[in-house]
């Protein structure tokens, strides 16, 4: 008689079972609440309103209009010429026309104050992939990147999960509008040293998520000096650069480098994407722009794991090269975002709620600390839970962004097309 022996189940890796994906954090729990009961004007007016997703829907009509008028971008014409090349095209260099279009678009956003070389553009399927790729390239497992708080919750996953790299926070607080100070930089570096962790770089988001504010020129200069002194890298995630309410208020690290004659620029890398400024997150278009040849080469090779469909590259190449369209789009998008922002701020002010002075992005940084029972993380989460439950609003608690002061919340205002 055969004896049944219980076979041990075949195991998975540490990466697979790790919690670093972060999906159990409040940031994502709020999304789940929304997914289960989403607000809809007609079908579900008592559902949860999504204000926790930084998506830009305010200018979709402009895109629609362009695509209607320029059908050649989305087809390969009758008889489909050019299709063959695209069908087979899996070169990790990406379509040259697309790289040129991205470079020129990035220049336009910065008002021509910085130049971008298409050959330094590396394409990835979204900024999520770009940030992870850079982390793989700049740091070894166990090393760290310094990131100013509060920061985008997704970084905990994107920068750390598969890479094995750590994040050491650079603490910022409301006393100076959460700006990065040289003292905070040094303190974070020291924190890492004490833990015997090697710091490989600083990663900033400019304009900042979740603050909704651009980083001032003087602060950028200080950060650049710091990384030069410590001989480490600087990654500037400028994914919201086109969402600054006015072009002149946003200073890109590229401008600082140009002003310095590109001295010591090999340590700087910029991340960009079309998900926020163009409202096309579904298209999965991200890019790494690096002033470092080796990083460009390596990133390009590694991008094999995250290539953008050639069809999408072709489609967007013509659109982004149309300077008349892009100039107009950028201007109108900025205007509309600014209006939405002012509307929300006004509304909140009338309710007695103050926000951080913002000038960019798809969200505002709201201070609800007066409403907390206790000025603690628990107090904040209690308030957050009741906002979801009773007000049916999904907003993101500051603790999920590692904010050192409890009571701050991020409210997204651009993810709805119609007026609400």
């Amino acid at each position, binding site marked *: 008689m055969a004896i049944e022996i219980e*076979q041990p189940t075949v195991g998975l890796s*540490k990466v697979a079972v790790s919690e670093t994906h972060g999906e159990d954090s409040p940031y994502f729990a709020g999304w789940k609440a929304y997914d289960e009961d989403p607000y809809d004007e007609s079908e579900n007016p008592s559902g949860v309103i999504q204000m926790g997703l930084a998506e830009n829907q305010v200018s979709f009509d402009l895109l629609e209009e362009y695509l209607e008028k320029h059908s050649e971008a989305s087809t*390969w014409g009758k008889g489909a010429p050019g299709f063959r090349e695209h069908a087979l095209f899996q070169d990790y260099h990406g379509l040259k026309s697309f790289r040129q279009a991205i470079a020129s678009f990035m220049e336009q956003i910065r008002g021509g104050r910085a130049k971008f070389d298409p050959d330094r553009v590396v394409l990835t399927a979204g900024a999520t992939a770009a940030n992870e790729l850079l982390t793989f390239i700049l740091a070894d497992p166990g090393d760290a990147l310094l990131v100013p708080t509060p920061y985008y919750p997704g970084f905990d996953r994107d920068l750390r999960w598969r890479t094995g790299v750590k994040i050491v926070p650079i603490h910022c607080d409301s006393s100076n509008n959460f700006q990065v100070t040289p003292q905070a930089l040094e303190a974070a570096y020291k924190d890492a040293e004490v833990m015997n962790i090697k710091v490989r770089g600083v990663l900033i988001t400019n304009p900042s998520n979740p603050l909704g504010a651009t980083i001032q020129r003087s602060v950028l200069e200080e950060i650049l000096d710091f990384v030069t002194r410590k001989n480490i890298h600087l990654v500037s995630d400028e994914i919201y650069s086109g969402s600054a309410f006015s072009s002149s208020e946003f200073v890109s690290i590229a401008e600082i480098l140009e002003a310095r004659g590109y001295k010591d620029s090999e340590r700087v890398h910029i991340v960009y994407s079309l998900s926020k400024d163009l409202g096309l997150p579904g298209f999965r278009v991200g890019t790494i722009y690096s002033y*470092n040849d080796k990083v460009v*080469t390596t990133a390009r090779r590694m991008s094999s*794991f995250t*290539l953008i*469909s050639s069809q999408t590259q072709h489609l967007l190449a013509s659109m982004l090269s149309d300077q008349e369209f892009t100039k107009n789009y950028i201007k109108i998008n900025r205007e509309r975002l600014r209006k939405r922002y002012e509307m929300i701020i006004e509304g909140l002010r009338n309710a007695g709620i103050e926000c951080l002075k913002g000038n960019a992005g798809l969200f505002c940084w709201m201070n609800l600390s007066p409403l907390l029972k206790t000025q603690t993380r628990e107090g904040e989460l209690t308030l957050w839970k009741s906002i979801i439950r009773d007000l049916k609003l999904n907003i993101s608690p500051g603790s999920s962004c590692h904010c050192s002061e409890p009571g701050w919340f991020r409210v997204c205002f651009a993810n709805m097309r119609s007026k609400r």
Partner: protein
Amino acid sequence: MTLTQIRTQSKEPEHPPRKPTGATGMRLIVPLQGVVQGRGGLILGSLIPCALFYFFHLYLKRHRSANPSSNPPSPSASSPNLADIPRTASRSNLSSRGSFGPGRASISTRAMSIAKPNDSPYYIGLDKVSGNPYDRTSNPDGIIQLGLSENRLCLDLIEKWMAKNLRDSIVGTDGDDLNINGITTYQPFDGLMELKVAMANFMSRVVGKVVSFDASQMVLTAGATPAVEILSFCLADHGNAFLVPTPYYPGFDRDMRWRTGVELVPVHCRSTDNFILSVTALEQAYNHARKRGLKVRGLLISNPSNPVGNLLPRERLFDILNFAQEKNIHIISDEIFAGSVYGEDEFVSMAQILEEEDFDKNRVHIIYGLSKDLSLPGFRVGAIYSYNENVLTAAKRLTRFSSISAPSQRLLASMLSDASFIEEYIETNKKRIGNIYGLFVEGFRRLGIRCMESSAGLYCWADMGKLIPSYSEKGELDLWDKLLNIAKINVTPGSACHCIEPGWFRCCFTTLTEDDIPIVIERIRKVAETCKSPG
């Protein structure tokens, strides 16, 4: 007796092993230096000879899975990729120099190995062709590409479909399948359900409708390349190993190992077995890995096989499943060429076995994609099909780093759902591949070059052993170099695929038309004449 002497002695052992690069050698030497320099008299007497013998033995047995060649082909072949980046902002000349000078922030160790110029013939050949590609009219003296398994035979069918179905605008009215409404926003990272369903149906048709695939067990990725890497991340930890039958697709070295830190342990297959995996070889490789202190987490097979093009018979699949069960490891079955079976033999998918027989499904994961069977590598569509809930959950989460662009998903969902088109495409594709295969192999036969029996894939596995100057990896690479630089044909040498027998080459023929074949044969013939060994 020093280690350097041992290394020269190991050049011509009975079964030519892979010649490791200097790096491996160093890893052995350094710890030994400590011993040799003497920490006590005892060591000199007995330990050193024992240690040296042990390492020598290990050296011979070691089958490398890293860059195979320590004899890079002629300098003309190597083109550092860095050369084509114009220096604008950056001042320093970084070409193949290695790390930065003082004061420059360095990149990670992981990245360093990726940054240096590719010395694998597989990549060098691909680079060379892109620099001087053959075109019958505009560049007849260019290099003919037989090193990239790309299928151009049925692009006309796809073109026709596109022309007929792609509306003038992708922002059409409601009800228009291909409009971008609703897909510009964030979508599930693991793919639109409409595409998963369409893929499941397509996969079912491809294997002859004997299996039905469940869309909920599928995770879509931007190409099969990330699919393989994601599985590697999910099933193994840094430092663990996968067994892989040789010869295998050179890309696995990158996809499975680069960022994961996982090792590949080759399971050598031989021409006497038609390069089909044997259980003995599996056991040997497994034990070998154990001896090296490696924990084996799974077995990666490609079926239909790349680069040989043969199919694993049903009984062998049973053997593999039993082996995996016994060792409690995973099986990754890369079935990306399933739709490219032109021969008489029956292709049996792992999915079919699992449906028919009672094996533990939790350890089996299938990889698929549209790059080969549907000729659309540019659109980046790959899939992981698994029966393991935990793997699906983890893989889903990882697809955020490798998602397929939404408009392409919509376009392909529409195409794959067009049943009559797909039916016509699959049948025509098989016929055309079979036709070119026949002509190609016949051409080779007339040159005295035999190809391994195969019934699938976009390539043939040719035995040019008679043409190589010495029966060794070096001899094989000499011939490869001649073919590339004199005959101007890029083929993939067996050593790049970790084949244990020198002289085999993978030649892809699905980028050729019937008229190109005589040209290819003629070019090879000219070189072959100069290679005929005397006597």
